[in-house]
């Protein structure tokens, strides 16, 4: 009996520890975003401030071009989400349900490319983009298309991999039945398979949105003042205005809202779809 109580106590301690580990930084983010500057710059910042300042959330739109960053991030993330989801759904279906020469090579190539360091591609990109501008006159650095293509391609392999894992769980009989009923390959795909793969598609869409929404490395080089995305905007904000951490934290909260909303609505899909894709490798 005593042992049972001890075990229970240990379990509760463990859960409390993990919750604190996750929640304390989140609490600090939120509470600091509501503080006055003077309450931030002290040796012992208060855990429960006696006064709060909601207008931090108004000020961030004035001190930095947050609205512009927001627009840029939305354009880039939504476009690459749509493109990557289409590309991945097509490719994942082909790799999962068809047998054709070169299938293995293609699958392994996708897997391998997704694992190479981003920095490896960034240098050549930068130079290729300059080259294209010099020879063809098409500017790519600092434009949306340059960033959208890049993000689509970088989410692509991972998305294909998750999608393929998902299509593996969709019974092949569905497609065969549709073919027997006289559907072509294309119709069987759009009318029968796609609806059955909705959770997988939702997962991949969120994942690709989140990846572009959070990306920093390529944004440091491929964006300029006009096309700066949110993560880099936040970084520069923090570098420039070392005196206003409360505003930086408020901006951080605002940046997190879209992904949190996504997550709350699609958590069910997300957990099942993602774990099936990730565990199976």
């Amino acid at each position, binding site marked *: 009996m005593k042992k049972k109580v001890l075990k229970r106590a240990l379990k509760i301690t*463990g859960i409390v520890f*993990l*919750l604190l*580990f*996750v929640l304390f*930084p*989140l609490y*600090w*983010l939120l509470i*600091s975003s509501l503080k006055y500057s003077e309450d931030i710059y*002290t*040796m*012992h*910042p208060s855990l429960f401030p006696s006064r709060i300042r909601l207008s931090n959330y108004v000020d961030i739109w004035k001190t930095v071009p947050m609205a512009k960053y927001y627009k840029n991030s939305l354009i880039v993330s939504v476009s690459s989400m749509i493109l990557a989801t289409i590309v*991945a759904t097509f490719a994942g*279906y*082909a*790799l999962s349900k*068809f*047998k*054709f*020469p070169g299938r293995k090579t293609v699958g392994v190539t996708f897997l391998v*490319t997704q*694992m190479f*360091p*981003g*920095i*490896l*591609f*960034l*240098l*050549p990109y930068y*130079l290729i983009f*300059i080259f294209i501008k010099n020879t063809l006159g098409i500017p790519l650095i600092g434009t949306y298309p340059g960033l959208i*293509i890049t993000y*689509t*391609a970088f989410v692509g392999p991972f998305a*294909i991999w998750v999608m393929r894992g998902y299509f593996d769980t969709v019974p092949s009989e569905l497609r065969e039945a549709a073919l027997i009923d006289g559907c072509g*390959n294309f119709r069987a795909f759009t009318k029968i398979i796609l609806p059955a793969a909705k959770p997988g598609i939702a997962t991949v869409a969120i994942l690709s949105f*989140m990846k572009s*929404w*959070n990306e*920093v*490395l390529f944004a*440091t080089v491929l964006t300029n003042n006009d096309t700066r995305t949110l*993560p880099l905007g*936040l*970084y520069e904000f*923090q*570098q420039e205005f070392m005196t206003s*951490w409360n505003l930086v934290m408020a901006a*951080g*909260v605002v940046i*997190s809202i879209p*992904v*949190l909303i996504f997550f709350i609505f699609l958590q069910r899909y997300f*957990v099942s779809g993602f774990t099936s894709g*990730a*565990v199976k*490798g």
Partner: protein
Amino acid sequence: MISLNARNTRFAYKLLMPAIILTFLVHIIPTLWGIYISFRKLNIYYIRNWTEAPFIGFANYTKALSSLQGVFWSSLCYTLIFVIASVLGCFILGILGAVLLNENFKGRNVIRGILLIPYILPGVVSLTNLRFMLLQDWGIINSILLKIGLISEPIPWLTGKMALISIIIGNIWIRWPLWFITILASLQSIPGELYEAAKVDGASDWQGFRRITLPSISPTITVLTVLTALWSFNNFTVPFILTGGSPSKEANILSLNIWIRSFKNWDFGMGAAMSVVMMLIMLVLILTYLKLTKLEEEQ
């Protein structure tokens, strides 16, 4: 089950075409281009007209790898410490969380949702917040440690050796939920009867964990280990944000090191040579991974 005929093959290739074109444009051609650059003396004078940069053979490689410069080797060492410590941390927290939440109790789903938040939150936000918490003078962490008397002087978390520890903590904080949720999923696929049978045979909880739990989750752990190792090895965002783009020697891990060399010092040739060496190390890791997952499929 999978049909093999010309029409299906054509259809499959059509479906794959966008992905293949994209991979060529954005992965394969740039990789080759990067290898090509690494043999050129491409510095600030040649950025605009980089096609004219002189060919210098392996000079970039010897410069990067020579013990005199030593930049690459020390950076690689710190990167490896970063990778190993991150995997260990994720492993411990992931198993702890998964085992604790593998029981039914009230509020379980809520707690599971909360523990996933670090994975969902934009990395830049988590890391900027962590940087704020770790500030030497105004940071809450130093404040708490001072108050409870664990330290007598504020710790400079973001500089020197401590910066390496900070980037490890940051990396673990954003990655461990993936471990937790995938291990939890594979724990839930273990039939409960196994444990009951073990109990009947007089096995202790610890024996049950060692003989039943660990073997059933080990394939998941293998995949997670390799993925986390790869993603940490490549990582740029964590040290970049936590150190504000000017890391100490200990926090200057490979991706950030190459970025600074290329886009701050404008020594593209050397940066490219370092990335090619990095790619070769990655290839070894990836091949190990493919071999391991193949082994599993065969089992």
